[in-house]
């Protein structure tokens, strides 16, 4: 069963705290992504990872960093979270060029 798993599903953090969002996939996909989704704004690409330790900024990378030490695992890190980073974060993966992109169920992050 092909799956992208995100943990946790819901998270509340105080402004200034560090945040770690985890994502795993069981499809041995090379490429993984982090998107954020805000009401009325669609999905915006934060980072893309082409393989282990091969990461590239997306359209809105400021305030975020990522880590990919194993092909099946991709983390999004917010150092000193800000209230404007309150959003739903989606992890996704794909098998390579020109293949379907699979999304996880999302993590709803609230920064207070």
């Amino acid at each position, binding site marked *: 069963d092909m799956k992208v798993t995100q943990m946790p599903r819901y998270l509340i953090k105080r402004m200034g705290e560090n945040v770690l969002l985890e994502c795993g996939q069981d499809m041995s996909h090379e490429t993984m992504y982090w998107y954020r989704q805000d009401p009325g704004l669609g999905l915006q690409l934060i980072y893309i990872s082409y393989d282990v330790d091969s990461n590239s900024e997306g359209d809105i990378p400021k305030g975020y960093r990522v880590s990919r030490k194993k092909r099946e695992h991709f983390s999004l890190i917010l150092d000193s979270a800000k209230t404007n980073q309150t959003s739903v974060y989606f992890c996704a993966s794909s098998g390579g060029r*020109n293949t379907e*992109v699979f999304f996880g169920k999302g993590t709803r992050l609230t920064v207070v």
Partner: protein
Amino acid sequence: QQQVRQSPQSLTVWEGETAILNCSYEDSTFNYFPWYQQFPGEGPALLISIRSVSDKKEDGRFTIFFNKREKKLSLHITDSQPGDSATYFCAARHDSGYNKLTFGKGTVLLVSP
């Protein structure tokens, strides 16, 4: 500059009617256009897609019409069902882009019984 635009923002149709969701894009190098369907509390899931070499793609009740010259496409959902109520995202990419999708802001579809 918004690369992919969708209209309308929201749409309500009656059960059995045809829903038409519109999408346009700026980058003429885009050549692959997937539509994603998203239910509340879930991630987007691929519904149907089309490449720019085609002008139409059908999959059951879902059809994409594509006009390359005008850089427009539309998703038609015939015989709409309440279970089709969801947010629909149009996305685009070019094949050299390592699967970097650019998404529109979405259309919220409500199908009333």
